[in-house]
């Protein structure tokens, strides 16, 4: 049972009008992992997270959270007890104070952690008496994170959790998140445009494009298997001999997954004068996949 992934989807699809926002998406997120969800604007990240907590329903396909089906209303209620969702907009009723919002929220969750809520109030620099309408964008983000992280959820679904936070507060939020992950077993799926923060705290990365998963792997695995190989030839490079190679004058560069040696040997046998092999960052891998999908 413990090995069963927390999130599983099979051919999940969400159609708005004629547009498939989620287009046959297959995803698994293992228990206890912190998974960064990367994709361009409109790739379907927010729709996906919303579907997981029942804020929008799949058109077809299957999705399970802790084995519970996201398309059945009775099971959705159970999912919402164990999964916390922090949306991108983070709206609160303007006339309520921070204290009232916290009291209101905790009433729904028997596993509420008052100790953590107090700790986050301090680290996130939130004051109990402030009216939500007076909170800055950054403060609303911090309050939303506090509510999600203090409720004792086993799964956190975060949509751009640090968007609008200054770098110091963003780092504190990430620190609170890894600290929570160190204390209790939680699974985190967070959508982000901050590739650096995904690289910093995620152990898995999922990239989606046009509603489909284009990559889903362990971050360490990605970093150890991908290499950038660049060849320089005497004349026009044999670009057709390599998949997804970028040709620029007499140079040919390509991102290689696994076995750069084989590619290097092939380039050398085709008369490459010079060969460079360099490690790649997550950003390189991201751009490569997004460019590939855009072709």
């Amino acid at each position, binding site marked *: 049972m413990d090995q069963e992934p927390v999130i599983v989807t099979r051919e999940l699809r969400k159609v708005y009008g004629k547009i498939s926002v989620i287009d046959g998406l297959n995803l698994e997120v293992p228990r206890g992992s912190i998974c960064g969800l990367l994709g361009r604007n409109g790739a379907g990240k927010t729709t996906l997270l919303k579907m997981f907590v029942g804020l929008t329903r799949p058109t077809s396909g299957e999705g399970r959270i802790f084995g519970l089906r996201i398309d059945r209303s009775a099971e959705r209620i159970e999912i919402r007890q164990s999964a916390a969702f922090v949306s991108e907009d983070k709206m609160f009723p303007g006339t309520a104070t921070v204290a009232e919002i916290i009291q209101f929220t905790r009433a729904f969750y028997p596993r509420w952690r008052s100790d953590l809520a107090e700790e986050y109030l301090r680290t996130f620099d939130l004051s109990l008496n402030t009216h939500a309408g007076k909170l800055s964008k950054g403060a609303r983000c911090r309050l939303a994170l506090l509510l999600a992280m203090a409720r004792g959820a086993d799964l956190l679904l975060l949509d751009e959790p640090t968007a609008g936070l200054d770098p110091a507060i963003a780092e504190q939020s990430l620190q609170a998140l890894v600290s929570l992950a160190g204390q209790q077993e939680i699974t985190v799926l967070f959508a982000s445009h901050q590739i650096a923060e995904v690289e*910093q705290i995620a152990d898995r990365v999922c990239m989606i494009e046009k509603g489909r998963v284009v990559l889903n792997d362990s*971050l360490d695995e990605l970093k150890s298997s991908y290499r950038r190989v660049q060849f320089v030839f005497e004349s026009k490079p044999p670009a057709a001999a390599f998949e997804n190679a970028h040709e620029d004058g007499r140079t040919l560069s390509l991102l290689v997954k696994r076995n750069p040696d084989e590619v290097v040997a092939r380039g050398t046998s085709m008369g490459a004068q010079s060969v460079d092999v360099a490690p790649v960052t997550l950003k390189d891998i991201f751009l490569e996949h997004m460019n590939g999908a855009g072709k």
Partner: protein
Amino acid sequence: MFWKPSAGSGVPIYLQLMEQVKHAVETGALRSGEQLPGIRKMAEDLVINPNTVAKAYRELEHEGVIELRQGFGAFVTKNGAAAESRERRRMQNAQVVVKGAADHLAALGLDEQQMRRLFETEMTRLRESSGREK
């Protein structure tokens, strides 16, 4: 003693952390029998994933540098410290070779990026030739 790993470097964070621990043992910042920070503390201090810290610790245990005692934490082993001091001498000797090469390349006007790439290419060549022998 430990600093935040560089996320964008292309080197997996657990490997960077392993290097830091080994370096701490090599330099004597951590001695035989001394305790490393707990997984949660280390994850919090460096703002990295606790699973990543756990992975680095497991690998270090596998290499015999540290010992994980259930419920007590991670400690530098005697062998680890001794091995690291042998390793340190070996690395000091190797460092001289690399320093000579780096100085030479710098004198030829190569920048850091170029040297790195050359080194990486040589590593690939080594892997390739050892692959052929098998």
